[in-house]
């Protein structure tokens, strides 16, 4: 921080016309920050991730001011982070993100209709000694209620300029732009001033505005953001006078009055300075953090190196506070209380309130969270989302498949027969198809999620469902991702970002693929229609049982994970229920687009790469002679004589002629692998041909059906409905003449697909969302083990009962 500050001062002095400025936009969730960001940048911005984490970073140039860039920091409630998002916001503000550009100023967005709570963060940020501008957003809600806010007085009290806006209509945004411009200008002009100097060269307390106690000091008073002319007043004060003014709420740190609290905080601040833990600008913020409960073990201050001596002193201070308050409170809590006491006075001063009325939000909530109607509304909403990702996406996905087919046809026509053509069509284009086919589902789900989030219903959905999810050790917010997972785990896993707690989020990600997604449906249908002819009730019952198995397993595994590898304190459900608001369609569409694009570029590359590898495994080694009709006479790639015989027997049992593609697949590496794992999967009732199907369908579960068609040499576009494939399955036999597919094997196979993570796209998206290969590998391993165990129990257990 220290070097950052001096560096920016130096460069500002030299060439403040050339350098672009970076302004951070920070605020509480639901403060309308993102809408304002879109207004300021005119919806032109870039989205990326912060290095190593999956928190999105949005940055754009301010419209009409190309030299000013704005970065939209994740929403947060305070500078003591509780989620990865809040951690990033805090670290960027403090200048703790490695390699990140320091901020040249901060714009704090405040929901003016919820002033007191929003000012908590605003006042903390204002103390960071960065040029700060405060935006009172949603002023229309304030006036709509018949309230009024004296922005000038507020500005005086907070020691930072205040601008009023209405983000939804754009009122005040021009004024905000010029205020930001002025803030940047004043930073440039004051670049030579010495007040950015580190404390060691200047000495705390030497400034006229410095209060007598070198504590959580209101350095803001001399800051560069004094566009409102409060500087003189602040500078004039000193000592007791200053404190008197403070008690009236005249300065940023005026919340800080209690003698005992002052002593504690000043001790810690002194400690921070003595050990030079951080630059002077952030001393107060770090001091507060070190006062917070369990500060010495907090993960989020881990990268601040605490020398042993410092650690000891700090521990002693914590102990003393603990003793002084009989263990009931901490200095940190005391500081929060003092800040709120001050903010209450400020708000009383600046805000005039009309008598309280029943709001529209309250009226909606009487229905939306009602015992009976609330559940009905929730069920209807979920039904709508579920239906839309399940069925509305269908025509779009068909369209995409048609386009991919046309592309493949084009390549087929352009290139002569050969490996390149096969690679392009069956590897690259098929892989791209595997990526874009998710696009409609992702778009629809994220459009809904954005609209639900913006409207305020998302918080209600979590409120209504929390009790259910708590049973599995999860948070109410896990419900929607798990439900979406019935359609597809990929968008569902992307939707877990709304879960604040890292452990809850990981648990939800890990169990989401257990919900039966739409790609399993073709396998269920194939097995049920081939092996359970007749009784429609039995068929429906089996189908339902598969869905139930996935759901119950997911909830049980979530409980297990929360008690073992992802053990932690019980998830907290401290969540704001924001007022209902009309969602901004532009913001929602933009959000949808950003997410979908990130999926295409990041998960997409992994999926295409795996597709090409799978293609190569099925393509090599090449058969020397094409069009060999007799499987037994195939010259290459026989693993063993035993396999040869078995193959011959298998082929003999099939009445239709074996085609070349089938033969090629059987003797490819993938085919050999299928044979290789046969001893392993035999206890599940599977033969090597199913082994090939299992291997190939790692690309996507529904590939199983097409692969089996190729393996059995069923020609033409074989699909679930094609009776030749069903016939083949019914007739397939082991070398000794036993049928391969008994109803029990069918169930065993379905159970395997319910529980196994046979989906590279899921693994790719988990890799992207957890920013490491550790979790996707773990997911694949535990799900495969679960699937194996499940199938084993079903098949062997069934045989014991004589069903085999």
């Amino acid at each position, binding site marked *: 921080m220290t070097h950052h500050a001096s560096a920016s001062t130096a460069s500002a002095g030299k060439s403040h016309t050339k350098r672009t400025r970076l302004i951070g936009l920070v605020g509480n969730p639901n403060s309308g920050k993102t809408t304002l960001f879109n207004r300021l940048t005119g919806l032109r911005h870039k989205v990326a991730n912060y290095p190593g984490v999956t928190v999105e970073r949005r940055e754009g140039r301010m419209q009409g001011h190309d030299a000013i860039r704005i970065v939209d920091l994740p929403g947060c409630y305070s500078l003591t982070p509780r989620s990865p998002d809040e951690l990033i916001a805090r670290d960027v503000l403090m200048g703790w993100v490695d390699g990140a550009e320091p901020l040249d100023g901060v714009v704090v967005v405040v929901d003016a209709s919820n002033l007191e709570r929003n000012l*908590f963060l605003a006042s903390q940020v204002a103390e960071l000694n960065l040029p700060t501008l405060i935006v009172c957003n949603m002023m229309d809600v304030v006036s709509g209620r018949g309230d009024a806010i004296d922005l000038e007085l507020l500005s005086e009290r907070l020691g930072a300029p205040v601008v009023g806006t209405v983000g939804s209509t754009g009122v005040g945004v021009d004024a905000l732009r010029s205020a930001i411009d002025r803030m940047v200008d004043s930073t440039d002009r004051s670049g030579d001033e010495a007040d950015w100097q580190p404390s060691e060269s200047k000495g705390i307390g030497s400034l006229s505005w410095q209060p007598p106690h070198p504590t959580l000091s209101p350095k803001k008073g001399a800051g560069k953001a004094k566009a409102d002319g409060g500087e003189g007043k602040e500078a004039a004060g000193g000592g007791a006078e200053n404190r008197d003014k403070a008690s009236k709420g005249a300065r940023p740190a005026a919340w800080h009055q209690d003698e005992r609290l002052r002593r504690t905080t000043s001790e810690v601040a002194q400690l921070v300075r003595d050990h030079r833990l951080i630059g002077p600008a952030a001393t107060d913020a770090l001091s507060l953090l070190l006062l917070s409960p369990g500060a010495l073990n907090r993960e989020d201050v881990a990268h601040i190196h605490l020398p042993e001596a410092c650690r000891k002193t700090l521990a002693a201070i914590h102990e003393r506070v603990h003793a002084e308050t009989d263990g009931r409170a901490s200095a*940190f809590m005391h500081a929060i209380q003092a800040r*709120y006491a001050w903010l209450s006075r400020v708000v009383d001063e600046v805000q005039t309130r009309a008598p309280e009325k029943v709001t529209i939000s309250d009226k909606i909530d009487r229905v939306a969270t009602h015992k009976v109607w*609330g559940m009905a509304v929730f069920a209807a909403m979920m039904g709508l989302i579920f239906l839309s990702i399940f069925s509305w996406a269908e025509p779009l996905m068909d369209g995409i498949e048609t386009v991919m087919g046309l592309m493949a046809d084009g390549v087929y026509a352009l290139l002569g027969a050969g490996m390149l053509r096969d690679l392009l069509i069956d590897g690259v284009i098929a892989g791209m198809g595997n990526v874009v086919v998710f696009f409609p589902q992702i778009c629809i789900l994220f459009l809904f999620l954005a609209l639900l989030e913006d409207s305020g219903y998302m918080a209600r959905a979590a409120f209504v469902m929390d009790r259910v999810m708590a049973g599995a050790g999860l948070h109410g917010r896990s419900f929607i991702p798990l439900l979406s997972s019935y359609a597809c785990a990929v968008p569902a896993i992307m939707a877990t970002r709304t879960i604040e707690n890292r452990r809850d989020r990981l648990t939800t990600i890990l169990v989401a693929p257990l919900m039966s997604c739409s790609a399993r449906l073709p396998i269920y249908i194939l097995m049920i229609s081939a092996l359970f002819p007749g009784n429609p009730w039995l068929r429906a019952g089996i189908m339902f049982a598969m869905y139930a198995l996935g759901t119950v397993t997911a909830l049980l595994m979530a409980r297990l994970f929360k008690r073992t590898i992802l053990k932690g304190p019980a998830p*907290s459900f401290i969540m704001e229920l924001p007022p209902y608001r009309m969602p901004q369609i532009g913001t929602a569409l933009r959000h949808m687009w950003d997410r979908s694009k990130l999926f295409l570029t990041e998960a997409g590359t992994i999926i295409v790469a795996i597709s090409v590898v799978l293609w190569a495994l099925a393509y090599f080694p090449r058969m020397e002679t094409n069009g060999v009709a007799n499987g037994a006479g195939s010259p290459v790639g026989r693993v063993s004589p035993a396999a040869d015989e078995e193959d011959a027997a298998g082929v003999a049992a099939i009445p239709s002629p074996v085609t070349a593609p089938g033969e090629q697949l059987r003797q490819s590496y993938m085919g050999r692998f299928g044979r290789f794992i046969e001893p392993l999967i035999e206890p599940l009732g599977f033969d090597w041909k199913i082994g090939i199907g299992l291997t190939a369908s790692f690309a996507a579960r529904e590939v199983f059906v097409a692969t089996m068609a190729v393996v059995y040499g069923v020609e033409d576009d074989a699909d679930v409905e094609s009776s030749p494939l069903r016939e083949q399955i019914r007739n397939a036999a082991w070398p000794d003449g036993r049928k391969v597919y008994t109803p029990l094997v069918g169930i065993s196979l379905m159970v395997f697909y319910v529980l196994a993570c046979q989906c590279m796209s899921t693994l790719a998206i988990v890799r992207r969302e957890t920013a490491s290969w550790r979790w996707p590998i773990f997911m694949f391993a535990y799900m495969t083990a679960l699937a194996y165990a499940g199938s084993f129990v079903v098949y062997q257990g069934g045989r014991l009962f004589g069903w085999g």
Partner: protein
Amino acid sequence: MTLDQLTIGQEGRVEQLDASCGSAARLMEMGLVPGTAVRVVRVAPLGDPIDILVRGYHLSLRRSEARGVTVGRVDTAGAAT
């Protein structure tokens, strides 16, 4: 009494937060500090999280979290009991 014992519509004033409870600090940051007036507005359909009005906004929290907040009843006349 504790916050989870208030029934729908009842008002209370926060007296103390249990510092040993992991969520105490966050509850305070969200505005629930000693002296703050709170009202239980509604309870989720399945009986668990509760919705309270604090500093003019709605906050939901689980009963287990509300148990760490000691409150004094404030009846409609405004007298603490």
